[in-house]
């Protein structure tokens, strides 16, 4: 069918990541809580044993899930996150000094990643002015309001989870599993994506694509998704 040689397709998460992993590297990991996590790629990183990682991710997973898996093996040295309240192990490792933590407001974190991917080295935001977040950062006044300068973020590797992808790397996310995934896809020197459904080109409607294939260097079909629910809540009927 496809006559072109689509070089982005890899057969397994190990194959798609092993030659780009190194000690001390920076990794962006998509997801919000346990929603939209690149589960297969996190497992591949765990298996590789790569260490001293700086990880950029909104949350730190929970025990046994997401980046929680890399905390158990003490592969993470430093984290940039907005909220780690669901992970007791993280709190322990932080309070005991084993892990460095930089808290970013969630919107500042998202915009730093977006800016990094878009080639913007820094921007000004009102978020965090007058708080410890703006300490030692440049403050500037625009139209009588104070703003703090924040810098763009890039990573050696971005690991991303999408719902559907095609062989050219075009991606579609599902519901709130989108979250940080599309912006992180733009900010990795290497971006590796795992999808639930890997399709032939032509099977995605170009008008519906969320992440154009240019940002995606490698793509695999993920399997055995646990898709754990952190806070199962029902309504009373």
């Amino acid at each position, binding site marked *: 069918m496809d006559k072109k040689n689509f070089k982005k397709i890899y057969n397994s998460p190990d194959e798609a990541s092993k030659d780009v992993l190194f000690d001390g590297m920076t990794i962006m990991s998509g997801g919000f*809580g346990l929603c939209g996590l690149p589960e297969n790629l996190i497992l591949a990183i765990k298996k590789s044993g790569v260490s001293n990682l700086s990880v950029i991710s909104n949350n730190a997973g929970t025990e046994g899930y997401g980046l929680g898996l890399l905390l158990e093996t003490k592969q993470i040295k430093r984290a940039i996150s907005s*909220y780690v309240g669901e992970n007791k192990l993280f709190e322990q490792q932080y309070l005991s000094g084993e892990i460095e933590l930089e808290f970013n*407001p969630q919107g*500042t974190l998202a915009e730093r990643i*977006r800016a990094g991917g878009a080639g913007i080295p820094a921007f000004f935001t009102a978020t965090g002015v*007058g708080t410890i977040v703006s300490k030692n950062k440049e403050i500037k006044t625009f139209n009588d309001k104070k703003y703090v300068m924040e810098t763009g973020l890039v990573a050696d590797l971005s690991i991303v989870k999408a719902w559907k992808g095609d062989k050219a790397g075009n991606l579609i996310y599902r*519901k709130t599993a989108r979250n940080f995934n*599309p912006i992180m896809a733009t900010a990795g020197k290497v971006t590796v994506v795992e999808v639930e459904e890997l399709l032939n080109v032509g099977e995605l409607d170009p008008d519906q694509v969320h992440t154009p294939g240019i940002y995606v260097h490698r793509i695999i079909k993920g399997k055995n998704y646990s898709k754990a629910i952190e806070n199962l809540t029902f309504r009373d009927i």
Partner: protein
Amino acid sequence: MSWSREKMCQRAAKELKDGDYVNLGIGMPTLVANYIPKNLNITLQSENGMLGMGPFPVKGEEDPDLINAGKQTITALPESSYFSSADSFAMIRGGHIDLSILGAMEVSCKGDLANWMIPGKMVKGMGGAMDLVAGVKKVIVLMDHNAKNGSPKILETCNLPLTGEKVVNLIITNLGVFEVDEGIKLLEYADNVSKEDIVNNTDAKVSFPD
């Protein structure tokens, strides 16, 4: 004596206006959604990337790809939309959200808010709270008037690290409703609450209606 949590949420829901886009914080503010008057068209935003949040699912309807900012399972509505975290905070930071209701550990008489950190003790993180208070048009704090140990939470100056400076417009507690604008002004007493109750439980000057 004073308002129950239910009454506090009911009172907070009265602040919603027809057509408002609203972000509700984690915990008690989330419960305000249960008291939105049926005749109002209110769109709830969830900062993990959704507009038009529906109710919690019934059993069997839950979807791990569909959660709110508190990581609770939720449902969509016919008018819902999904977007990235960057788009979500562009909405918030850009002043497109009308109202944010959130909890607090401390609020100062100048409207400073502290709700994310207790140094050396609690390191959960600020999540989206700093962006919300910096960008949303109106910020309401919904909280118990006193901490669990009984100490006042409305203060001259916050002791804890701030979430935002001069950002709170209205405080709703179990003792009443307070406007924050160059000082704290009581707007409304909770049931069977006296001026004395408020003065004794507040560490800031409160002005009362004549």
